[in-house]
């Protein structure tokens, strides 16, 4: 315990823990919409699509300043999303296939660039590959401030367009019939999701970022059946995973932060899947006998 308190006084730890928590909050909120829109894989595609942006930003500017690299990441994420939507719209190829293609093409191109950069062998390139799995220890206070600002922007967008995003997730066709341009609305929501992804790239990296979007949402859905509460719970689950992952990794030598955050998150998801009232597996098993009839009004026809 005293070791923990000692840790909390540590500058690096405070920075990393706060950054990880911020990342968890934003990705929890935006991930909830992605999951409810059955776009759980979209986060995976977008985060992988960030890699060529990071590399190109470095090649063009020669700097490793996170703000510059993350701006590059955002642009390439967004291009990945645009490519995805365009191909789905214009061709008869199914959405999941297009997702697979966009992910591989962008990530593959990113790896090519990364290899090219590392073969150049100049000192400036060192550390670029931390964007693959993230390296929270490289976070400095400035980065955390940037993350907080971006996070605030993303959350503000969700608050501002909450009822529109909710309608879009629930029934896009009906939203169109109300006069909304659902294509633009969807693009807006995706753009905000890109912001959430960019926040996490330094900490958990492009490969594991998708889990930060999907995990908190899946856990939160277990505990509540109201969207507004689900967003709050997802933010809490995200923050808790970020915080505990950071604490665990820093309390032991040689434990990577990003993967530890994901493992903490996984633990929370498993607990939620097992224990949540009404929806948890254990709860269901206990109440299955004798309760089966009231659980499925769908099966009983029109009760009115």
């Amino acid at each position, binding site marked *: 315990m005293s070791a923990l308190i000692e840790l909390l006084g540590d500058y690096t730890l405070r920075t990393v823990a706060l950054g990880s928590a911020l990342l968890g909050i934003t990705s929890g909120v935006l991930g909830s919409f992605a999951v409810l829109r059955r776009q759980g894989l979209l986060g995976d595609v977008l985060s992988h699509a960030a890699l060529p942006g990071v590399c190109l930003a470095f090649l063009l500017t020669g700097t490793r300043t996170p703000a510059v690299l993350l701006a590059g990441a955002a642009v390439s994420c967004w291009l990945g999303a645009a490519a995805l939507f365009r191909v789905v719209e214009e061709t008869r190829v199914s959405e999941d296939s297009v997702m697979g293609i966009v992910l591989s093409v962008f990530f593959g191109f990113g790896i090519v660039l990364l290899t090219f950069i590392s073969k150049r062998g100049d000192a400036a390139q060192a550390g670029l590959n931390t964007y693959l799995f993230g390296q929270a220890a490289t976070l400095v206070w400035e980065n955390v401030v940037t993350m907080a600002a971006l996070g605030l922007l993303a959350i503000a967008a969700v608050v501002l367009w909450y009822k529109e995003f*909710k309608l879009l997730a*629930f029934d896009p*066709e*009906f939203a169109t019939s109300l006069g909304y341009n659902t294509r633009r609305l969807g693009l807006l929501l995706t753009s905000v999701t890109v912001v959430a992804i960019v926040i996490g790239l330094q900490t958990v990296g492009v490969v594991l970022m998708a889990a930060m979007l999907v995990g908190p949402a899946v856990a939160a859905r277990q505990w509540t*059946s109201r*969207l507004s509460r689900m967003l709050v719970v997802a933010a809490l689950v995200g923050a808790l995973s970020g915080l505990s992952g950071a604490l665990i990794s820093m309390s032991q030598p040689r434990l990577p932060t990003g993967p530890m955050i994901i493992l903490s998150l996984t633990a929370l998801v498993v607990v939620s899947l097992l224990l949540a009232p009404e929806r948890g597996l254990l709860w269901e098993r206990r109440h299955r006998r004798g309760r089966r009839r009231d659980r499925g009004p769908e099966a009983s026809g*029109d009760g*009115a």
Partner: protein
Amino acid sequence: MRTFEASPTASTAASATPASPLVALEHVCFRYGGEQVLHEVNLEVQIGDFLGIIGPNGAGKTTLLRIMLGLARSECGHVRLFGQDVRAFRDWHQIGYVPQKAVAFEARFPASVFEVVLSGRTGVAGLARRFSAADREAALGALETVGMAEYRDRLIGRLSSGQQQRVFIARALASQPALLVLDEPTVGVDVEAQEQFYGLLRRLNRERGTTLVLVSHDVGVIAAEVTRLACLNRTLVFHGSPEEAIRTGAIARMYRDDSLLVTHRH
């Protein structure tokens, strides 16, 4: 293109002269994947009409509905809504839409019945605004109209098909539209609930004066309920009163080489 925001301006409905039809389709056509789905459709929906659109599968019924709702664009002719060209039309809250239940929504979505109905007010409330007390009142009123007020806190996925369908009508009614458009609303709804459902439509039409457009392949029920009937088979083969359709044999002709009529009657 429509603007990003659904911006209802109350003036449009008023600007339509009393005589102008709510929907006017002139020479409408539509192609899908190189195939002519609709051809030379001319159709008007007058205030107070209860119009049934029937036709065999693939007749273009849903496409026609989507054109009326601005969800699809006619490739020729003119589409006028409330006396205004569809491209300039902004008063979408005047048109309530009840989509086919099966494709409408994700049953596990975390939303209560009341939330779903309230979402029908999204365009009225305005962009980046929270729902007002008036929005909530209208939503509750719509729930009462369809007799589902006691289920307001129930999860939408936990209702029967018939109940869900009534909630979706309430959602469409929440914006207090002059025109209600329903696409195959009774698919998957049991017979008893269907009767209640048509009773509700009758009341809306006769007591509240809501104009209704209903697409269905359930010819028998439709012909008994509606005041106007349109028989569609890629083009309009009949448009008039249901009695006339039966007397002239228009329905029978449309389905003559089509066994669908038999298979679709339950």
